[in-house]
């Protein structure tokens, strides 16, 4: 069943109004309890009949990663979160990656980005032929509460990008 955004919109508006004081005070447990999560009725499913050694993989994280020298960090202030995404090249040097996400402890990831975004491991697996091709571009999202903007504006752009890049499989790694 498709996501019912018409039902979500007023519930989200109410949640923002009621949760803003708790959000600003950092009472995250309280605001999570009240968030109008969209629970899918069914499980989206595309069968997999391929061989990884002959296909193109792209990595998607929600860890708030961005390129420090060329991209703006994600907005970490707004209760709505930040619905944009960043493109991370597979050739990235770990030291060039910043993390802009206020809602998980990323101190260990800053020591080794591969624990949330295992790009170096995937490059190695491509070189060994275990993965056919690692896409040139990978993707980071961050903290999002505004599911309407995410679904109606961001996701179509993201899907267009991965289709144009010939991605066969997405490796989804939330934080």
């Amino acid at each position, binding site marked *: 069943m498709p996501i019912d955004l018409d039902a979500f919109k007023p519930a989200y508006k109410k949640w923002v109004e009621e949760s803003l004081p708790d959000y600003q005070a950092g009472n995250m447990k309280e605001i999570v309890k009240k968030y109008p*999560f969209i*629970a*899918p009725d*069914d*499980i*989206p*499913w*595309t*069968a*997999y009949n*391929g*061989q*990884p050694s002959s296909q193109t993989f792209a990595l998607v994280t929600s*860890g708030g990663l961005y390129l420090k020298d060329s991209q703006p960090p994600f907005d970490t202030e707004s209760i709505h979160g930040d619905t944009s995404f960043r493109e991370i090249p597979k050739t990235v040097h770990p030291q060039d990656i910043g993390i802009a996400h206020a809602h*998980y*402890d*990323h*101190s*260990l*990831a800053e*020591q*080794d980005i*591969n*624990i*949330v975004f*295992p790009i170096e*491991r*995937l490059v*190695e*697996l491509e070189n060994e032929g*275990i*993965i056919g091709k690692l896409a040139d571009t990978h993707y980071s999202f961050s903290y999002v509460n505004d599911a309407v903007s995410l679904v109606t504006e961001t996701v179509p752009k993201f899907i267009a990008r*991965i289709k144009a890049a010939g*991605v*066969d*499989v*997405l*490796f*989804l*790694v*939330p*934080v």
Partner: protein
Amino acid sequence: MPTISTGNSAERMANIKPPRAVLVKFARGSMFGEPGNVKRQRRIILDALAALQTMTEPGTIQELPYRWKQPDPE
């Protein structure tokens, strides 16, 4: 497009219902284990690739056996 997910909370994953996923028992922010543990990072990815090829039931979640700062099981 087929996807393979990782997760670290069985409760969250039960609500989100990813098509197919592997579950690790690590804290948020450490999905692939300890910093510098290259073998474990690689192993988790290989487990995810195996899950991609073998899972046929939508919503299957496989718990992986790795534990924080403990050796990988043989």
